[in-house]
């Protein structure tokens, strides 16, 4: 594992909104094929952190390297960088005026400038990967939440990203729809995709992820493999948080 290349490295990320310091120096790195899960109470800047990684939010201080290239450098073309970082949002953010197929295809056609037929073929392949090729011609509003989120994963996947960021991908979903999305994510992780996931789905974390990062009040409180973190948390705050989470989501979380 350790000889794998580091895909993402972030160092000392700071971000405040007005007087409120949201991130106070976050550092970690993600190796190729790894899945890291970020947990932590709401309002601790998990979403902000993800947006700092792909430059949707500009960090006040700190550095981000993608595949050895520093992307927090001001002369880096962020649009190009974002092509290689997929993002999946809590509210899916599918383009409401486009069909599932077009949602997956638009990045290929408009950003990657692929010929239309090639893009179509690829988009359909991606929809197949998330099990939705039959829904290709439906609009987002005609799909269930779970299906919408799977389309949005396909949309991210189609760009051949080096890594995908997931921002609480299941927290806007009805409980019975969470499983299908986690299933797709699990397959993705097992197929070797590099992923950074903000989620409180402990079952998912336990079974797939390589490391859990516990974020609280803008700092990394504790990080480590799921076994260690779940069974022997060193920090009191981590323990309390895990207790709360298991009350809310169930201990085993085998969905």
């Amino acid at each position: 594992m350790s000889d794998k290349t580091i895909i993402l490295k972030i160092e000392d990320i700071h971000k405040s909104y007005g007087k409120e310091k949201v991130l106070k120096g976050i550092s970690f790195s993600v190796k190729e094929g790894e899945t890291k899960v970020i947990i932590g109470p709401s309002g601790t800047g998990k979403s902000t952190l993800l947006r700092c990684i792909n430059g949707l939010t500009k960090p006040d201080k700190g550095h981000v390297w993608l595949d050895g290239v520093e992307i927090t450098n001001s002369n880096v073309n962020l649009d190009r960088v974002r092509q290689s970082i997929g993002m999946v949002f809590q509210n899916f953010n599918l383009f409401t005026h486009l069909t599932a197929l077009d949602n997956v295809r638009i990045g290929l056609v408009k950003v990657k400038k692929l010929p239309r037929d090639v893009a179509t073929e690829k988009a359909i392949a991606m929809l197949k990967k998330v099990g939705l090729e039959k829904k290709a011609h439906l609009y987002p509003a005609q799909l269930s939440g779970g299906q919408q989120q799977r389309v949005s994963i396909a949309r991210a996947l189609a760009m051949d990203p080096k890594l995908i960021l997931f921002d609480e991908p299941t927290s806007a979903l009805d409980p019975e729809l969470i499983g299908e999305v986690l299933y797709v994510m699990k397959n993705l992780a097992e197929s070797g995709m590099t992923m950074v996931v903000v989620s409180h789905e402990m079952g998912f974390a336990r079974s797939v992820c390589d490391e859990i990062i516990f974020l609280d009040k803008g700092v990394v409180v504790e990080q480590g493999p799921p076994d260690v973190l779940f069974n022997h948390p060193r920090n009191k705050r981590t323990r309390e948080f895990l207790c709360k989470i298991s009350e809310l989501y169930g201990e085993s979380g085998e969905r």
Partner: protein
Amino acid sequence: MTSIFPLLRGTITTLELTILLLAIGLAIGIFLALGQVYGPLPVVAVINIYERFFRSIPALVLLFLFFFGSSYFGLSLSPFLSAVLALGFRSSAYQSQIFRGAIQSIDEGQMMAARALGMKGFQAIKCIILPQAIRLAIPPWSNEYSSVLKDTSLAYAVGVVELVREGRYIIVRTFEPMLVYITIALVYFVLTYAGNKLLAFLEKKLAVPGYELKLKEAKSTKYER
């Protein structure tokens, strides 16, 4: 019977005016709206002043300003052209409000998702924001169509030979003011009705299945008339 032809001619001029005004208003209005939403502060301020000017001053006064102003500055625009410019700019101020409301009603996540895919700002606006905003804008735009159509009648005052003025000429010949004006009113009524029907059809045709786009309430109240 001999009155039918001038009325028809007037109707065509009225329609020409309407289409020109709406087109000018649309082209400028969308730009103004984008400037207001995405532009830097000074641009926003300038657009606000432009809007305030064209929305606060009565259409008739604008017509005179453009008509007499053009000769004051040595341009001497024809009545038709000064009407097109005055009312076209005026419509752009109203349309910019329509499109601004529509753009602002679109969830910010749409822009974020587009940027996350690697789209450039203007690409995201062109491919993601505007297609949705335009759909949203159709109902208020339909209102703007009715207003513009009716306001073309004011071009009468600077001497454009549109429907009302053709009517005036007929009355001078026939001494039938009631008949002529009621007929003209009916023509406007039919044009308003037909245009609105057409736009409603367009709205239905462009509607995204299963999805009801909604304008944010507070913003839509502004252009009711």
